[in-house]
């Protein structure tokens, strides 16, 4: 190990080609490339990468196995801490987590940990097809309900099933996966090849799913606990409600939340001619926001044939999106209007978007988040001509669960309040992921789901 070579580049679809299709951008490493990249790891005694992984994957250990070519062993090591490695390898913000703290990154490029994780997970999946799934564990007879089939719910369900619980996931949409299905596009996270396979491995463990159940309206948490025999409930319902800008013209025809745009395209497959769900085809599209969702919306619009501009109020350095997504968006031809903020959506005489008035911003003093807060530059208003505006400014919590579950404590933002290990104010009700933290990442939600599984196990063992 400690091979002093440059980082092994990963193969990707040509930007010009991929800007016109929804196939996955990154091809990932093959075995040879992965082993070569693994040879760069220093196998640090005090691995900083592990400390900055939200779920504490034993990174140097699995990389050592990749180096040796024992990919199954590598998969086992990752699986001790992560239940969705093929997904996290693709969507984690590695540059601020594991790779961001890799010692090699101080002078050169960090080990490509995300790509190695992805390789190990993909290799396992591609080579375990047709094999008998892991034997279902001995049932302990206790039923647990998991609300929401996004990252936190999936992780929680998976761990509980392995402990012998009989787990039922309730999902409000017609398809499982939460944000992995409706939010993150195919070109970044393939649905059939990756998401559905990860879901299948969960069902192979005996986890059941009921789709089309909107907990709070179709059935309440109290019904689940008192009438349906669930001993505990995990709430992993995420932060689903889109935020808008609150500027004039926001309800003009042609203004969409990124959630709507992405849901139409990903969940409803509107990009496919065979889909019955329409999507708005615009020549010019502006996307407001600088996070991963903004990049996803922009790159989706681009693939649907639009000329796309991202409007972001801070500078490039502050863009909250993964560096790789920003890089890919640029390569594909997405334009950026940085230090710019929309002030008004302009409509034509029939109420359809024809432009967005913006103002230039400059960075002032750092705010509470430590980022320099943007201030408008007086008199710098200008108009960007556009046919559509997609708003990707984040999401907030749907209060339905809190409103329909007596004595479930929330904070001012509607987030469920938990104490200790993911326990809410109601006995038997646990929560994790975005519904507790506010909008965050797949890996954090997954980590929370796993913590909740442990807490639920303790709770049930103490009582029954």
């Amino acid at each position, binding site marked *: 190990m400690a091979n002093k070579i440059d980082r092994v580049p990963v193969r990707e679809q040509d930007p010009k080609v991929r800007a016109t299709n929804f196939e996955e951008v990154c091809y990932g490493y093959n075995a040879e490339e992965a082993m070569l990249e693994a040879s760069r790891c220093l196998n640090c005694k005090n691995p900083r990468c592990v400390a900055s992984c939200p779920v504490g994957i034993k990174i140097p250990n699995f990389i050592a196995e990749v180096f040796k070519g024992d990919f199954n062993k590598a998969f086992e090591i990752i699986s001790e801490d992560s239940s969705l490695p093929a997904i996290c390898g693709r969507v984690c913000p590695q540059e601020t987590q594991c790779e961001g703290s890799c010692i090699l990154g101080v002078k050169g490029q960090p080990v490509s940990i995300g790509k190695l994780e992805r390789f190990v997970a993909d290799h396992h999946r591609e080579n375990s097809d047709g094999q008998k799934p892991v034997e279902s564990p001995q049932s302990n007879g206790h039923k647990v309900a998991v609300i929401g089939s996004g990252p936190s719910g999936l992780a929680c369900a998976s761990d509980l099933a392995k402990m012998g619980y009989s787990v039922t996931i309730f999902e*409000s*949409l*017609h398809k499982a996966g939460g944000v992995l299905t*409706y939010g993150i596009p195919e070109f970044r996270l393939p649905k059939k090849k990756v998401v559905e396979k990860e879901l299948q491995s969960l069902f192979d463990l005996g986890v059941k799913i009921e*789709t*089309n*159940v*909107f907990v709070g*309206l*179709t*059935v309440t948490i109290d019904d689940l606990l008192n009438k349906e025999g669930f001993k505990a409930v995990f709430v992993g319902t995420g932060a*689903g*409600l*889109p935020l*808008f800008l609150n500027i004039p013209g*926001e*309800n003009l*025809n*042609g203004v*969409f*939340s990124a*959630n*709507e745009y992405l*849901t*139409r395209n990903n*969940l*409803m*497959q509107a990009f*496919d001619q*065979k*889909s*019955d*769900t*329409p999507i*708005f085809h615009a020549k010019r599209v502006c996307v407001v926001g600088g996070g991963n969702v903004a990049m996803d919306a922009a790159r989706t619009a681009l693939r649907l044939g639009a000329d796309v501009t991202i409007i972001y109020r801070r500078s490039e350095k502050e863009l909250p999106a993964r560096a790789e997504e920003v890089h890919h968006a640029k390569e594909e031809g997405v334009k950026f209007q940085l230090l710019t903020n929309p002030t008004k959506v302009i409509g034509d005489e*029939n*109420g359809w978007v024809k432009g967005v008035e913006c103002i230039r911003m400059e960075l002032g003093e750092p705010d509470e988040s430590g980022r320099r807060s943007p201030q408008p530059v007086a008199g710098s208003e200008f108009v960007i001509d556009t046919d559509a505006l997609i708003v990707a400014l984040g999401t907030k919590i*749907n209060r*339905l669960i809190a409103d329909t579950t007596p004595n479930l404590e929330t904070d001012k933002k509607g987030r469920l309040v938990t104490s200790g290990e993911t326990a809410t104010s109601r006995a038997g009700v646990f929560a994790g992921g975005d519904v507790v933290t506010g909008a965050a990442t797949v890996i954090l939600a997954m980590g929370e789901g796993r913590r909740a599984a442990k807490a639920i196990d303790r709770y049930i063992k103490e009582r029954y």
Partner: protein
Amino acid sequence: MYKILKKEQLTPLIFSMVVEAPRIARSAKPGQFLIVRTGDMGERVPLTICDFDREKGTVRIVIQIAGVSSNKICSLNEGDSLTDITGPLGKPSDFMEFTPDKIKSLRYLFVAGGVGAAPVYPQAKYLHSLGAKVDVIIGARNKDLIIMEEEMRKVCTNLFICTDDGSKGEKGNVTVLMERLYAQGNKYDMCVAIGPMIMMKFATLMAKKCNLPIIVSLNTLMVDGTGMCGACRVSVGGKTMFACVDGPEFNGYDVDFDEALRRQTLYRKEEQQADAEAGLDFLVRK
């Protein structure tokens, strides 16, 4: 899968289906709606709930062929299944929180436009069963679009029917009847109008003229119906609301109908093209 137990053709374009959906049947309340999807590439179609049977675990939906997706649903037969039904969605009608004593003292006027008779039915039925006085107006373009007349008659005090072309009931639209009932000295505690957006707009203008409070049930565009996408946003009292989770029922006086009408046309071009490809271009879209 959700099995269709009974299918009836009410008019050339309107069908009624009783569908197996035990969870929804158990929890549905008047005022709420559901979302139906059929086929792998099917659209999520918001539909009103016409009736439910908690014991049998069934819900009844009434659906008019208005485009490709509704046509696909209507072409299914007894014994077939709908791929997905989600619900009940949205908030129940306000009166679901009233005490029976209060309801007994109330007089309601329901104004149903065309297929809007379907969601009016469970509301009228509930109020009528608790002793409220309920008058219902059903209006449509012509007699082929008037539905549920006999059933409605059983759950109200007075039923009035009108058609634009006079082919059934009185000639004229629902606002003419509203105005006449008012002129005759009828006093109502509340009017509830459900039907095409344009009808609800004019019913609201008439209600204002008659000094009558009015609730409308908004049939906006929707995708998920759970508050996630915001396609259904509508200005109510100057504030942006989501029809799916904040509604679908709102105070008619506060609704910006012109914006709501405009927002309904967002995918008109795509819809017309899809209609034409499916041989449905005889359907009139405003």
